[in-house]
């Protein structure tokens, strides 16, 4: 985790080292001065607030799993659980734990069917082998073409979208909150991906719908006031209702992709 953001103006919140501080804050054991500084960050810095929301849920899970020390457990019960909202979250955590213990967790990659090439190769006559080889080569060709079509970054064309039907959405990296977008009929969505790292000339975006790749685009950075953004325009036909992720990478001088961040948005019905 290498995210950082401004905290109370002068210093940067380092989420690697400050996770412990946030945890102490949630348990009510942070001293007053640090607490005030952190709270100002919660109000002014989206990264600090997002991290707080994540840690809140993780603390609940740790409590339920018996992962807190005796002192932490007491603080959790007397301080953390002060509001009805957090008590409801604890109840949700208990139910989720119960659900999980009633389920058999599938093995990783269990949903990805593995082709049984060996079985086919050893099961038939030599003519079948030749037939299989032809089919295999054809399948590999189709796969390669599909892979190229999906993976190859396509330079975003100069804007040809109907501006009156263009919805502009600003997205912050790795935000825990998902922005909803309503796409007008025959319209497009322009995502303005905020970037802190402006050291690249060229960028590449990969659009996913619930983990399935949809398209890859080659992009360039633009300046929007004091902010640096990478704009990505997507036509409405590509976007059915659901959750989407954009993986943004910078392209180095040597042509290598360097992952920058993930962005999320939801297309409303």
């Amino acid at each position, binding site marked *: *985790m290498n*995210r950082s953001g401004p905290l109370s*103006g002068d210093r940067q919140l380092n989420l690697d080292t400050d996770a412990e501080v946030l945890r102490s*804050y*949630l348990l*009510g054991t942070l001293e007053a001065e640090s*607490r*005030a500084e952190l*709270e*100002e960050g*919660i*109000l*002014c810095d989206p990264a600090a*607030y*997002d991290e*707080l*929301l*994540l840690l809140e*849920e993780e603390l609940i*899970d740790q409590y339920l*799993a018996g992962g807190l020390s005796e002192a932490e457990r007491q603080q959790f*019960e*007397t*301080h953390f*659980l*002060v*509001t*009805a*909202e*957090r*008590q409801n*979250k604890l*109840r*949700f955590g208990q*139910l*989720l*734990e*119960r*659900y*999980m213990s009633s*389920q058999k*967790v*599938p093995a*990783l*990659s269990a*949903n990805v069917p593995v082709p049984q090439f060996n079985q086919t190769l050893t099961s038939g006559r030599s003519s079948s082998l030749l037939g299989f080889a032809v089919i295999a080569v054809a399948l590999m060709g189709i796969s390669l073409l599909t892979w190229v079509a999906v993976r190859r970054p396509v330079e975003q064309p100069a804007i040809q979208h109907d501006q009156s039907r263009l919805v502009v959405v600003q997205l912050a990296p*790795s*935000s*825990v909150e*998902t922005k909803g977008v309503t796409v007008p009929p025959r319209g497009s969505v322009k995502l303005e991906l905020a970037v802190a790292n402006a050291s690249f000339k060229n960028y590449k975006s990969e659009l996913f719908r*619930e*983990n*399935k790749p949809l398209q890859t685009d080659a992009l360039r950075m633009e300046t929007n006031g004091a902010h640096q953004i990478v704009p990505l325009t997507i036509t409405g036909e590509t976007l059915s209702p*659901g*959750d989407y*992720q954009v*993986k943004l990478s910078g392209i180095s001088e040597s042509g290598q992709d360097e*992952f920058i961040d*993930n962005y*999320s948005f939801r297309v409303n019905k």
Partner: protein
Amino acid sequence: MNKDWFLSQEAFDALLKWLDSDREQAAMKYEEIRKRLIKIFTGRACSEAEDLADETINRVISKLNELGPEFEGDRGRYFFGVANKVYLEFKRRKSPQPPQFTPPDPNQIELEFRCMERCIETLSEGNRYLLLQYYGAEGSTKVEQRKRLAEELGIAPNALRIRAFRIRVCLQDCMEKCIKDGLG
């Protein structure tokens, strides 16, 4: 603050205008500030965190005439200063109370569990898989399992953490609705 003061539509509109000239952006900023104020009051063990957040906002609204549109400071920090005052007054009139628990009715728990099952069924296959993998591992295997899952999905561990959190929030929203509807 004057006790006779009340929040009118006009006053609220003035707050939005103060937050941003674009009304839609202003409304979003208002929601963000309110959520964060609630978290701050919760962090200070105030059981009435929502009321105190609203009290803070009302006080800022009542000061808008004095602040004027030329106010150049950080609006977030201004809210923070007012929130501190509201908190001190709250502390003076009320000592911190330990959390009050009402034991849940067993029938209610069963209803909630059925809602959870139903809501998990409505998740997409990919999200259900992620949920099971992320929360299904136990004890010492959890860290390794999550690391492998991030690798499998081709995302950074923190991105996985955020994705799991979002699914969890979706599930909480779905359950809230399901419970309210009594399973529909």
